[in-house]
């Protein structure tokens, strides 16, 4: 009911629902098809258009007086074990080094630095100012480097002193000379390093070296396997909706074109081939093959050749029963044809001539209920009236326009001729195949041209 109301609102955006589902049902197939397409499109878009990048680039551009950026342990393998690190600081030499977190923190503690703590978004790195880290790092006897005065010879003392005075001057300290790094890279303006995670706590240190050194910009890039969790469910759901919608749409069109076929499907009873034949040129073929509704035309023809003389009137098979159930429930979803088009039901008229329907020599299954079949009898007027509305609806939804030649002139009532089917055996197959095409809106091509089709149709009517 909710569904119905929803499709109703789709179909009638400007009008209210009260006209009811019976009216709105005519839009159900189209709406379902459209919804199926939409869901499939959304699913595909989620896997293509909206799919996240397969690489995560996260950047930080620290500001401040320092020249060192380090990462907290665990940041390097935040997204993936393999990371590409790039640091850039225009105008100065840039050094990138990876070491144990304590070594990196210990080195950085000598300068003012910025620590990267994680991601603040998929493109930005989160940072914290150095001093909070320096408090922890100062626990290690780093600051008091000069305190460990070793009484060495004059030369060594002065050499060590210069080395230490250099290391205390933050902006000129070069981390590249340290022995603590596992890997390191350096370059003017920028440096790049790749790293595969290994057990332990690792950090990267990026420093710009020089008198005019500024905070380097740090960029981490990880390959990021992106899943498409919505693709399959969306395509499955959308596909199911699409199939259901197309099925309903076909049924709608088919019912308009060939009510007998639909009715035969619904009841699950095969209609004798001859029974439908006199009813007019249009939908006479399929009833003989209700059990094989899904056969190809070629199979139909072949089967026709081998069973020309044997009318198929057996009790409905399992397939037919299943189809009957399907068609019945599908028809329940569709609005009733009579209600929809507002024309008198053909059945009352059918009822009377029914007894004369069975062709001479044709056996009729006892279980069949000809009276309930909406087939017009041979003498009844052709059911041309029901056609306009559904055809119009179908055309509105993009269905191929009906072949105008299929809207026939009322045929001259000709009495059925016994034995006629035998004489037209050769044409019967093409007639039936052609009827299928017309039912689905294809131009008839069995006999080459439309004229020929019409001719054969006339012949069939003339029987």
């Amino acid at each position, binding site marked *: 009911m909710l569904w119905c*109301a*929803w499709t109703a*609102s789709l179909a009638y*955006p400007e009008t*209210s*629902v009260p006209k009811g589902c019976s009216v709105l049902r005519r839009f159900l197939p189209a709406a379902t098809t459209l919804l199926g397409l939409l869901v499939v499109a*959304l699913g595909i878009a*989620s896997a293509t258009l*909206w*799919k*996240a990048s397969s690489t995560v680039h996260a950047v930080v551009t620290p500001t401040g007086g320092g020249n060192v950026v380090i990462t*907290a*342990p*665990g*940041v390097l393998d*935040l*997204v993936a074990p393999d990371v590409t690190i790039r640091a850039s600081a225009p105008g100065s030499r840039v050094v990138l080094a990876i070491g*144990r*977190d*304590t*070594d990196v923190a*210990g*080195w950085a*503690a*000598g300068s003012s630095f910025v620590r990267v*703590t*994680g*991601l*603040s*978004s*998929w493109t930005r790195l989160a940072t914290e100012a150095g001093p909070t880290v320096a408090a922890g790092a100062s626990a*290690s*006897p*780093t600051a008091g*480097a000069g305190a*460990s*005065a*070793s*009484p*060495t*010879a004059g*030369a*060594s003392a002065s*050499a*060590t002193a210069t*080395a*230490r005075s250099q*290391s205390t001057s933050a902006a000129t*300290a070069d*981390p590249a*000379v*340290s*022995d*603590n790094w*596992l890997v390191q890279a350096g370059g003017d303006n920028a440096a790049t390093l790749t790293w595969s995670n290994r*057990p*332990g*706590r690792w950090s990267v240190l990026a420093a710009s070296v020089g008198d005019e050194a500024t905070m380097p910009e740090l960029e981490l890039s990880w390959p990021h396997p992106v899943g498409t*969790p*919505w693709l399959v469910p969306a395509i499955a759901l959308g596909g199911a909706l699409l199939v259901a919608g197309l099925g309903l749409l076909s049924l709608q069109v088919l019912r308009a074109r060939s009510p007998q076929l639909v009715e035969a499907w619904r009841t699950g009873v095969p209609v004798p081939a001859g029974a439908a034949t006199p009813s007019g040129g249009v939908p006479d073929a399929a009833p003989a093959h209700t059990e094989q509704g899904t056969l190809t035309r070629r199979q139909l023809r072949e089967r026709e050749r081998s069973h020309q003389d044997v009318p198929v009137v057996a009790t409905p098979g399992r397939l037919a029963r299943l189809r009957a159930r399907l068609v019945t429930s599908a028809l329940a979803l569709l609005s009733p044809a009579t209600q929809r088009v507002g024309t008198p039901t053909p059945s009352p008229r059918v009822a009377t001539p029914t007894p004369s329907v069975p062709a001479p020599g044709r056996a009729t299954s006892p279980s069949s209920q000809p009276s309930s079949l909406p087939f017009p009898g041979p003498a009844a007027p052709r059911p041309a009236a029901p056609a306009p509305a559904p055809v119009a609806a179908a055309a509105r939804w993009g269905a191929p326009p009906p072949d105008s030649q299929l809207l026939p002139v009322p045929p001259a009532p000709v009495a059925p001729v016994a034995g006629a089917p035998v004489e037209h055996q050769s044409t019967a197959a093409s007639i039936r195949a052609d009827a299928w095409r017309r039912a689905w809106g294809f131009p008839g091509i069995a006999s080459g041209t439309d004229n020929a089709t019409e001719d054969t149709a006339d012949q069939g009517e003339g029987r």
Partner: protein
Amino acid sequence: MSTRRRLTAAALIGVLGLLLTSCAADLPIPHPDPEPAVPRPALDVQEISAVLRSVGAALKAGDAKNNPAPLAARLSGPALASRTAEYLVSAKSADPSLRTELPVGTQTVIAPDTNTWPRALVVVTEQPQNLQTPRILTLVQDDARSPYRLWGWARLLPDTRMPPTATPAAGTVPLAPNATGLLVSPKDVVTRYADVLAKGDSSTFAASFAPDVFRKQLAATLAATTKGLVQGLGSAAKVAETYHPRAGELYSFSTLDGGALVIAGMTTTTSLTLSGGKVEFQNDVAALLGTTTVSSSATFVWSDVVVFSVPPKGSSAKIQLLAAEHVRTAITGK
């Protein structure tokens, strides 16, 4: 009807929103490995090799011209002082064999399990080409921004055996100077050994040290010097020798047998006092002294590195001197 349409629109937007937001996963947060209870080795084998190569390169550069300038980057402490003195001597006599040969190929590596500074790395080298005993090199990193510098070397004494130590991959825990659990704490080992050197067997600590070649040689050299001077100058010449552990130059590591490897720097001072006469010195001493004769006094300063194997507490074993180096770094006199 407008409410219904609004509801419909809301439902549609909700579905679309769900589809869109589901594309963006939550931001990952760092999950570093937990901090190990015992720090991991400060250096791995490759880093140690790199350090040793750098030290070797510095030594090679210095040796090439007997020039101590290239050493400063990679040598410090007694090593730098000793090498500088050796350059003076070998430059004067043009005899490279007066320099201690220092190979940097390793037999055993003791990597420190530490997060703090200073850090010391100990290496037992391969045998030198002159077929002397292997050296024990001690490399020290003073602070986070310093390189590892060769702090000191010592020659393994004959008939000694290194105590078992952990592999460099596992690392060895450094010990504090006052570490317990040992027969004698590292700090006391050196002061007691200095006492033994000064007093000989009459020292109260002499019994806790196994006899060693170094002590014997020091005593023999002192005796020979004294004897020679007494022969020449009689009572006018007095010779005295003192031994002082140097403050802050103590590096200790636990060994697998529960004991410790203790490395210490020591200064030996030999004082010569003359109340009459002159003493003439030969090439190498003259090179350090700057002159050949002294008439009143002379002071010889030796830079020593001593390496002990200290047994665990309760052990009946004695403290064994494993390696030692005794290099004359300065001579003053007039």
